[in-house]
């Protein structure tokens, strides 16, 4: 198990570094002069190339070093928890991220929980009523919400629930998962991924129901719900968990659109700030955090497979 985790990490670590290098290079060559970004609101002639102040600052910030040295330095510092200073406001990037990350994480976890608790049962119900009205309703609804982009559904829900039928206050900011404020954002965060999970769960259940051992269980005269919960559900979980992993990664990146619309101060909003202000030290920090979380999520998903599917425990892996 430990060897497995180490191997997985070994597979991911160079990848994270590579992606970071790519983003760093993109920013380095495509982004613009960090000093000019820092002082973009200044009288511009002060911080132009050639000006001694500019050159001194550039030296001080180590921007005259070769690209790879700068990158190495960045990685080395990042490993020690120092993500540098934001170009836009001069604050430690780590500080902003550690304020934003718990929020994004709690949204991701809460939304994932909602998706699992609502999506999987709906998928199962749809499968059990295949081609009858509950199935049609659930599938149609899922498809419908799948067709509406987040940035449309968010204001739509907001006007419906806050103004048309004023049952909720206008959600803004983040006060925690279990507050009235969180209802609409969490709904929006969950609703599109849920569509995929419902479909996935439905087809997984249909696949399982056609297996011989389920027919046997049914033939034995077991009550339907026993058949479903005891025999059919576990194998269904494997594909669904894979899907949940994907959902989770996307939510962890902080849904850009969600956080913009609801003013949630999470990672997605930081990324947007980074883009708006050309603040690539912030952007890089966010990318690094997102990559780390993605790695961990994938690791968890990988570890969970054999636990969910006992068949895999005995399975042979590798080249045959």
């Amino acid at each position, binding site marked *: 198990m430990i060897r497995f985790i180490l191997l997985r990490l070994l597979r991911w670590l160079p990848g994270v570094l590579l992606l970071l290098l790519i983003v760093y290079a993109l920013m380095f060559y*495509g982004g*613009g002069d960090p000093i000019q970004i820092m002082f973009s609101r*200044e009288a*511009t002639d002060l911080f132009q190339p050639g000006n001694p102040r500019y050159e001194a600052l550039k030296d001080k910030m180590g921007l005259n070093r070769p690209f790879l040295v700068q990158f190495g330095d960045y990685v080395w510092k990042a490993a020690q928890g120092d993500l540098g200073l934001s170009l836009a406001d001069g604050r430690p990037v780590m500080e902003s991220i550690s304020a934003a990350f718990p929020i994004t994480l709690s949204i991701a976890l809460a939304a994932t929980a909602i998706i699992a608790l609502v999506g999987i049962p709906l998928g199962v119900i749809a499968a059990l009523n295949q081609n009858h009205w509950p199935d049609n309703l659930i599938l149609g*609804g899922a498809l419908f919400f799948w067709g509406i982009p987040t940035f449309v559904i968010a204001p739509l829900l907001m006007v419906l629930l806050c103004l048309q039928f004023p049952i909720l206050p206008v959600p803004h900011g983040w*006060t925690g998962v279990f507050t009235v404020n969180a209802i609409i954002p969490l709904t929006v965060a969950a609703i599109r991924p849920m569509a995929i999970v419902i479909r996935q769960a439905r087809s997984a259940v249909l696949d399982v129901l056609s297996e011989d051992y389920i027919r046997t269980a049914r033939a034995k005269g077991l009550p339907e719900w026993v058949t479903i919960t005891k025999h059919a559900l576990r194998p269904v979980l494997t594909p669904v968990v894979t899907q949940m992993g994907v959902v989770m990664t996307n939510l962890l990146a902080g849904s850009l659109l969600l956080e*913009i619309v609801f003013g949630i101060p999470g990672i997605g909003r930081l990324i947007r700030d980074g883009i708006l202000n*050309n603040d690539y030290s912030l952007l890089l920090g966010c990318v690094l955090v997102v990559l780390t979380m993605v790695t961990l999520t994938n690791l968890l998903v990988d570890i969970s497979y054999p636990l969910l599917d006992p068949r895999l425990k005995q399975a042979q892996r590798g080249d045959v």
Partner: protein
Amino acid sequence: MRRISSVLTVLLIAVFVLSACGSPAAVPAENPPTNAPAATEAQPGQPAAPAAAEKILTIISPTVNKDLSPLRGGGTAVRFLSLWWAPTIQADRTGNFTPAVFASWSSSPDFKVWTFKIDPKAVFSDGSPITADDVKGTWELSTQPLTKHQRVSLFLSGIVGYDEAVAGNATTLPGIVVKDASTLEITLKAPDPVLFKRIATNLIGPVKISQARGADGQEVADWWHADNKPAVSGPYMPVLMDINTGYSEYVPNPYWWGPKPKLDRIKIVAVEDGATAALMMQKGQADINFSNDLPTTFDQFGPEYVGTNESPDFVIQVFWINGSVPPMDDINCRTALVMAVNSDEMFKASHPHGPGVAGTTLLKPILGDKETNQPPMNNPDDARAAFAQCKYKDAMPKIYVAGTSNPQAELAAQILVEQWRQVLGIQETEFVPAMDKLSVADQGKVQVFRDDVGTRFADAPTMLKNSVHSGSGNAQSKMGNYNNPDVDRLIDEALMLDPTDPNRNLKALEAEKLVMTDYVYIPWVAEGPMMHHMPWVLNFAKNYDWQIIDPWNLDLDLTKRPQ
């Protein structure tokens, strides 16, 4: 499958109908929904809800402000500066100047040496008096490049030693001499009869310099943060700041020496999404919005909401032309592009219900209709004729239009390029919402910039000095080092004249005429600072610095606000 399709159709129709019902959602603010739940306390990051009788004002800021230092001189954070920082001299809503921190001021006959007296009652929120050293220190700190004050040159340029300080070569201003604890003497390089108007602002209002400046002569990081208990000079003082969410809270300053503030608490909330902000205002979850105007604001909130105060000071929004970049380096081309545009149409589209007026000349909003120059001609035929002379007419470079960062500016820019397309057949254009999005190499290519140029106070030569004089930042950056020696000479001459001298305005007009024949800008709109407040907010007005005038008068009529 057929059932799915019918379900889908029904759902689609349902949503369409519901959203169509969304239009009456534009409930006039006077008729708030009666069945709305009590929801005002659901603000982010705030402590427990206070007692209901308290008057709590909520202001929406359109951005998350991580830097609330009073010495930045720009950005949305400075728009509520007057809540917690007193101005040096106060401009009232009719354009008159009244004492604030400075109780009185006088100048030598040649307008080169000015003396300012500090009000002996003026104290910081820790009870200590505001001294001349605080003022001198604040102004010196503001000139330091690392302080990143965006507008310091508007206020302090011309003071002896200013140029060295802004270049980062000096940390002190020898032109400012502390005579005694409450007297300052300011020496200028050249005469300036309106210096007291120039420094009448909150943006360089004195801060407690022992807190703000470190031993190295530079600003102490985060000294202004509520956690560091800054000594402030305004009617309110901060008690809570969350710079990650852009939330801050202010309570009355017990040592405030002016009239007693009427509110119990002020909250500033960052709401970046315009639609969310509008909803919060409609529901009474917020009272004032510092955000940019949406084209629909009028429909949603009525004329009162977008109205301006009576101040004669206009913010003039202009599309500046960078004359150093092809095709703008050819005057025929500039002429054609300027003449092809109908500013009235731009104004009507971006400000369908006002406020303000369509852009005209730079000086017209200041001097009124009499004796001013005529606005640039909108004449498609002349435009086409001039375009025929343009040496780039067969290989027109792409035209970048920068500064389209808010919805209204984007609308105006769309009309601009559409008129060019219809009149001159110019196809290749690109919008650059924010300049710093472009790399340095590309920034040099941009030909058209939307930006405002404030008069700050109604003075014609100052207006030109800040916009088209070759020494101004505007001429250097947005206009590509625009330099017309005759214009510079006329402006410099006008600036030295006494404000009562009619020649001051005449020389400015003459300079403006020269600028207009150079075809270097396209006027768009002249507007006062917009209010954006709900009707239950009382005594709310802003001045030319976008500052709330007489912030202690700000009040709420809780009976009108939806609960």
